[in-house]
């Protein structure tokens, strides 16, 4: 698909199938993403967009296939990978300040038992400044607006100082100013050589925002540079009608408690 050398590949997904309760929601995905791009994942509701990045981050088990990051297994390169969950996935009424949440981005580097040091606080403050939230440092997180919450999550990710970022719907329910701020920070990050993968909903802004897109609808429809794959024909294939046969088979597997793969001798990777 691309002529990028092996060194440029930050994410390689091979024959990945993911199921919830035995029902496959993603079928046989194969893709590899190059370094330094801002990449959007698009597709209709229930297409498996969030599932794809959750499975890359090891949050949902794979039924088959494998994921390689920087040509390593996830566990060996966790410090280089950052994940930003959907804003609604946490309870914002938790008793924590904005700074507390951003400091969580340092926990991976700190390791068990250790408290955040002054250096960590300075990194956190710096990240808050980048997202324009330094004035809210002491603010209790339940008092933030949706856009501010999203900025705090982005600051937490920045504090991880990773190379590859996965963001789940960062633009859902945020104000226009926040969306602008976030996208300009993401562009800066990719200019510095980081790779950012974003689950996105709004087709209007795809060409403007993303260097690459991944078109997903329960299976990989296409992926590549935006100008090559973001066209009428492929969009039609992504959004035009559900693959009812595919989801019916999935439902059948769930109902019959069917395994996703036949049992076979463990193979070498």
């Amino acid at each position, binding site marked *: 698909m691309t002529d990028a050398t092996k060194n440029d590949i930050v994410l390689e997904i091979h024959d990945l199938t993911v199921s919830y309760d035995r029902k496959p929601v993603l079928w046989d995905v194969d893709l590899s993403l190059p370094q330094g791009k801002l990449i959007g994942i698009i597709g209709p509701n229930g297409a498996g967009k969030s599932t794809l990045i*959750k499975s890359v*981050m*090891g*949050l949902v088990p794979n039924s088959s296939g494998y994921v390689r990051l920087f040509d390593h297994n996830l*566990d060996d390169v*966790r*410090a280089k*990978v*950052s*994940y930003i*969950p959907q804003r609604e*996935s*946490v*309870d914002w009424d*938790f*008793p*924590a*300040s904005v700074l*507390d*949440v951003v400091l*969580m981005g340092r*926990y*991976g580097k*700190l390791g*068990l*038992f*250790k*408290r*955040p040091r002054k250096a960590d606080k300075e990194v956190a403050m710096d990240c808050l400044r980048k997202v324009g939230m330094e004035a809210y440092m002491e603010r*209790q997180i*339940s008092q933030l607006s949706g856009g501010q919450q999203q900025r705090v999550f982005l600051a*937490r990710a920045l504090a*991880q100082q990773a190379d590859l970022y996965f963001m789940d719907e960062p633009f859902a329910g945020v104000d226009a100013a926040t969306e602008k701020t976030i996208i300009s920070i993401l562009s800066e990050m990719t200019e510095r050589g980081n790779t950012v993968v974003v689950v996105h909903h709004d087709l209007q802004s795809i060409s403007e925002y993303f260097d690459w897109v991944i078109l997903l609808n329960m299976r990989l429809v296409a992926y590549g540079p935006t100008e090559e794959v973001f066209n009428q024909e492929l969009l039609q294939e992504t959004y035009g009608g559900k693959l009812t046969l595919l989801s019916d088979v999935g439902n059948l597997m769930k109902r019959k408690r069917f395994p996703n793969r036949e049992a076979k001798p463990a193979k070498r990777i």
Partner: protein
Amino acid sequence: MDTFLDFFSFSDPNVRYVVLGSILLTSSSSIVGCFTFLKKKALVGDAVAHAVLPGVCLSFLLTGEKNPFVLIIGAFITGWLSLFIIDAISGRSKIKEDTAIGLILSVFFGIGILILTVIQKSGAATQTGLDSFLFGKAASLVGQDLIVFGIVALLLFLSVWLLFKEFSLLSFDEAFAQTIGLPVRSIELVLTTLTVMAVVIGIQAVGVVLMAAMLITPAAAARFWTDKIKVMIALAAIFGSLSGLIGAYISYAAPSMPTGPWIVVVISTIAFISFFMAPGKGIIYRMRNQSRIKKHINDENILKTLYQLSEEEKNFYEARTVDGILSKRKFDKGNLESGLRRLKNEGFLNNDNGFWKLTLEGKEKGQRIVKLHRLWELYLTEYLKIAPDHVHDDADTIEHILTPELEARLEKLLDYPTVDPHESEIPYR
């Protein structure tokens, strides 16, 4: 009174044991309970507390002695088993977690009561004091218990202190914790173990039946007072200790009283007070805030009405009667009169033999409300394309909340208009 002095002088070593023991037990369960509360696992704590009973009874039945160490091991095993089964049931079957908790709680507790009855029939229970595990008996704590419970409590404090950062992150955002490579399952395991441990030692003072209250209530009460997790944990520990201390006193002063219910009464009272009194989140604070807003709206409406009356007659300092005001706008008469008095005290009105007059300040304030009302009506019709006959009620509310900053933005956005959608003049200074 003598008992009171005897107790609180702490001269009797027995009293010292009981007090120290109770405080250790209640404060450690309060601290661990904070995370149970933040993880929204209150019911799980309840299930563990009940599931501990068969373990306690079985170890007594097997060994025939009331060595706290032996009893704790038994309690620990069944407490853990219950959690394991709850997880297995909700993970592997169609039964949801709440149903699984309900099932396990009653089954384990039922078995526990059954074995306890067998022990009681054998006549051994009274000597062992095993029945005090049901409702707790702080006064029965002795030196030997204290050593064991002290060690366990210390272990709890230490673990929470060491793993504070991990526990907090796990309670707030488990998925994130997993992605940064924290050993989430192990930490979860430690936290669960701590919960079981807190329950196991706590039941000595509080009893199996009410132990869940000791885990959750201090945390819930503390949450009302603060938004900082460290302060919350400290407060929960203080609330817990206080209830433990009072529970121990009652157990000492009235030996026939079960301690557990008294401890729970005390901690519930603290929670109740927090629920009403806490600044910001408490009910009383909210009610006072609401009534302040109501008065604010009422008074602004009075000034607005006086201004509008004067506007029609072009005489802003005309003296008016209460009935005159009521002819322009409907007020509750009591509210109107108290509002008029308040406005007079604040210097917005003068009263002249029952006639009310605007002062210069009152006129300006009334004028501002009228201006905001008309600006907002214009904004709604121009920018939201709402029909002019639909905008009045909206404007009636919004006029009271707009800040000077928003007022300036509104004026600028609408380019200092002179009339509202109903052709009424918008008054500027």
